[in-house]
């Protein structure tokens, strides 16, 4: 099921929490929702799940509008809210059974689904305890289990890996990737490597507006604009090397980083790459090329550039 959002706006008093948001998520796509605190991520997610009313604009899930058919659409959506609220006085198994029944899972299938979720989320050791007795990580697993109990076509996860240990994080990411092949997944997070590890597409929002949309590589290219290479060439004077590099067609400018080590930073012209030229140059002149490293813009930098103002 695709999710289609058009011109979504939500006001809290005079403040616009979400301001003219438009995007689409297709089946089989995992969308990472990034943004600083208060950017409008959770509000958007709440509106998709039907918990909050839609201010202005339109959300369509499949071919139905959430505003008109919200109650019918809920059964297709699995939702893990922020802070993971749970009934602490209920045992894990009873709670999952309760959620399954509410989501309309057939009575005869409920035990199978519970077993499946206990296995997938690694809850076996704790399944008979009350939720209130569980550690934060295990509660998070229960939260994930309840979101997936009815095998929904759409998963909306608000910070799914908070409180999990590193092993579990890897497992949950793997699980999300696996699920994401057949389902539509939207997840929000503050952990940037997580987005790179799990998501097909990244959406960065700030103050309720989209500031970036694309794959991690796309975003890097857009943010970096130009290719930057770290180069170390030996067997010649640094000045000669610098001049030779500067003459290459695709090179914008060359910076000498370390004369003793003969290291340079080569900035290519926009949209062009000088890797091949550098290699050919070294072959021609019989120099030894001992380092050629592209400098990647980190996602953190992109995020900071786009959201700090």
């Amino acid at each position, binding site marked *: 099921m695709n999710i289609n959002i058009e011109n979504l706006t939500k006001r809290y008093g005079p403040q616009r929490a979400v301001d003219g948001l438009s995007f689409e998520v297709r089946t089989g796509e995992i969308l990472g929702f990034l943004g600083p605190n208060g950017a409008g991520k959770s509000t958007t997610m709440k509106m998709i799940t039907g*918990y*909050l009313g839609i201010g202005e604009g339109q959300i369509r899930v499949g071919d139905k509008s959430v505003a008109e058919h919200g109650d019918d659409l809920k*059964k297709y959506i699995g939702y893990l809210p922020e802070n993971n609220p*749970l009934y602490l006085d*209920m045992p894990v198994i009873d709670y999952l059974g309760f959620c399954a029944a*509410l*989501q309309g899972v057939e009575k005869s299938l409920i035990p199978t689904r519970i077993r499946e979720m206990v296995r997938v989320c690694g809850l076996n050791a704790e399944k008979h305890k009350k939720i209130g007795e569980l550690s934060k990580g295990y509660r998070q697993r229960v939260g994930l289990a309840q979101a997936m109990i009815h095998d929904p076509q759409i998963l909306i996860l608000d910070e799914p890996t908070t409180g999990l240990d590193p092993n579990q994080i890897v497992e949950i990411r793997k699980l999300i990737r696996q699920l994401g092949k057949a389902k539509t997944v939207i997840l929000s997070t503050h952990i940037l490597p997580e987005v790179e590890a799990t998501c097909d597409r990244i959406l960065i929002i700030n103050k309720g507006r989209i500031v970036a949309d694309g794959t991690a590589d796309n975003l890097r290219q857009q943010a970096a604009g130009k290719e930057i290479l770290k180069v170390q060439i030996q067997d010649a004077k640094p000045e000669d090397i610098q001049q030779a590099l500067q003459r290459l067609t695709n090179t914008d400018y060359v910076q000498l980083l370390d004369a003793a080590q003969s290291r340079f930073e080569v900035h290519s012209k926009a949209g062009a790459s000088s890797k091949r030229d550098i290699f050919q140059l070294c072959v021609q002149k019989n120099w030894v090329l001992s380092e050629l490293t592209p400098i990647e813009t980190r996602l953190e930098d992109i995020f900071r550039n786009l959201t700090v103002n």
Partner: protein
Amino acid sequence: MRATWTIATRELNSFFDSLIAYILLVAFLGFSGFFTWLYGNDIFFVGQASLQGFFAIAYWTLFFFIPALTMRLLAEEKKTGTIELLLTKAVTDRQVVMGKFLATLMLVGIALAFSLPYVVTVANIGNLDVGEAICGYVGLLLLSAAYISIGLYASSITSNQIVAFLTALFIGLFFHLLFDVLAGNFTGVAGTVISYLSLSNHFESISRGVVDTRDLIYFFSIIFIGLFLSELSLTKRNLQ
């Protein structure tokens, strides 16, 4: 229907898990038993095999206990945030309200069922008017349903349980006592209207064994309005 029932049974279980149910049962039976059998104008004082004394006591004990049961229903879910999880499941706001209402009514029903030995005892002492006793219980159930719907509404407007309890008690007090007192101070149409609003008049007439449509309409109106307003205040999150 299935969703309503699922919510109702979970809620009822949580009453028993959190000891609230046991406290209610013990306190309700303790209070009403004490005043019915042991103290003051007790059942032996009347000289008739009648449960009127018990009904009069239960009329007051339920008035105080029901807000204590209803105060957490929605307020707690709002405070802990579980309401978000509940309302994003495949249920409507109405099913949530109905489920919680039913759960509390069932608990009060259980409490009233435990007082049935009183009926058996009194029937053994003398010639009990069974019709009147049945009507008395129906009256208590209707009164409970009315106060539960008021309590549910009070619980839906706040995330603080104490505020919910006091609000329910405050609204309840008008129906329970104040309208009756006020009615005495007014004449004409105002007097009639206020007197009709008083819950005690309707309860008394039912518990005497007279089931009048006017009384039924009165109780069902309160229940309906209470539940309707609760649903409305849940739905209000959409309208901001």
